[in-house]
């Protein structure tokens, strides 16, 4: 598996990440190098090994589904790049 310029563009789009023009060339190359390096995992047959996502092998704790916080719109908006009244604002998305 290897990443060409077109795939690199697609990944960048999926990640909502604009890659600077001068880096486009090198990005695909670097990702391919890393992918080539991780290919060594192919030496292992692990199809019958259970994937490990949580080292403590415990189901995540659940909390009661009740509201336990809230009512801080000023705090929440304090870091917003743009806001109006108690809302975050973004560029217009509906014509």
């Amino acid at each position, binding site marked *: *598996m290897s*990443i060409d310029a077109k*795939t*690199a563009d697609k*990944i*960048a*789009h*999926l*990640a*909502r*990440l*604009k*890659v*600077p023009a001068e*880096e486009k060339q090198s*990005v695909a190359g*670097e*990702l391919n*190098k*890393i*992918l080539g*390096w*991780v290919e*060594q*995992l192919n030496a*292992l047959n*692990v*199809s019958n*090994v*259970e*994937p*490990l*996502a*949580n*080292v*403590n092998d*415990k189901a*995540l*704790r659940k*909390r009661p589904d009740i509201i336990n916080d809230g009512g*801080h719109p000023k*705090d*929440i908006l*304090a*870091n*917003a*790049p*743009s806001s109006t009244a108690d809302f*975050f604002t*973004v*560029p217009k*998305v509906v014509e």
Partner: protein
Amino acid sequence: MTKLTDLSATEALAGLAAKQFSAVEVTQAHIDANSAETAKALNIFITPTFDLALKQAKESDARRAADKAGAMDGIPMAMKDLYCTKGVRTTAASHILDNFVPPYESTVSQKLLDAGCAMLGKVNLDEFAMGSGGVTSYFGPAINPWSGPEPAKAARKLIPGGSSSGSSASVAARLAMIATATDTGGSIRQPASVTGLCGIKPTYGRCSRWGIIAFASSLDQAGTMTRTVADSALMLKTMAGFDPKDSTSIDTPVPDYMSALGTSVKGLKIGIPKEYRIEGINPEVDALWNKGKDMLRDAGAEIVEDISLPHTKYSLPVYYIIAPAEASSNLARYDGVRFGLRVPGENLADMYANTRGEGFGKEVRRRILMGTYVLSAGYYDAYYLKAQRVRRLIRNDFDEAFKRCDVLLTPASPSTAFAIGEKQDDPIQMYLEDVFTVPLNLAGLPGMTVPVGLAQNGLPMGLQIIGKSFDEMTIFKAASALEKAANFTHKPPFTA
């Protein structure tokens, strides 16, 4: 009398209790040290909070006068700028967060404040903790106070390891008494090794991750950066504990780690994993490892050679699939809408892409792209799921190993501190810095670096002690014995 900046936290607490000096005096001594141009040149602090530290120190003195002092009352600390601190700018060393002021305090930093620590400021790191040299910081790299003995070397600026670069540099330079750090793949243990410090990454789930800016959530843990084993024991006791706000935090008692210090290691089984003798290992690192073995054997421990962790060599490839995958998901929140940088675009999608493109540095972008790729349709099974399967084999290796020994002893870093600019042309060269530390994060195990000696170039080297899950006590027992035997009293050429 010893300079106040030279005291360990444990020594300072004794002096404070005996009224030999006040918390204000201790904090002021560190602020004065940090105000020197030579200290500023180390580029350690992203956001100093000296006024806040003095205010906290005054409150500490008042508590002590009222006999209400906490477990660490009056200790000046540096805070890795990955911990959210209420009302104090928190950047993760990234342009995308360089104006972010959290409206809340992370659980771990709150515990340290509650214990009476005074916060000197927020210190440098690799951007979003992604790196092994501190060089990916948007604010420029922190400099290692260790420079080697030769003048030519001194002119060549060395890095203090990473990602907890400001944490290691500040404590080594005596510009902070202790520092918080975090470790996702070695970000405590590798910088501790190249700056001659102690640092423990506890078991996954031991410390709350709540309020610490997330990099790879199944691997991230909070931990310590200190000059002595006792300070790490004291600090971890304060930081650890169950937190209902972190669903991966484990509800289990936190033992008194200090009680493990100085206890006999007679009969303790120290395993030596043969796969850590990697090809092309630095002969000095290998020699140090042998020296550490001898020290523990002489102290009465039993060395168990030929412990095998057969899947060790797959740890880095597994890590560089899992960590970027989790990072790409965690960093999706930085979109220019709710906090942080916003770079305008022609429409909403453009604004997202422009913000993230400009806001993240090169290494962070690389990892987001890598993570996005391995999680994308058609590649998820081949990369991400496969890496998680191998991750279980790596964990199983440790389970087997710990049937034959109590702790493992290994190198902590493959080399001494390197210079700015080195290992930066090829990302994989930098990734290899974490060859001895990454397997523990994948297995969730605790590990601690202890400084053991100097290399011929005059730079410090540490060894790593790896423990069983939630058995930090035995790590501290072995670390304390190793510290005593190694008697590492060297200081960097630059100190406060």
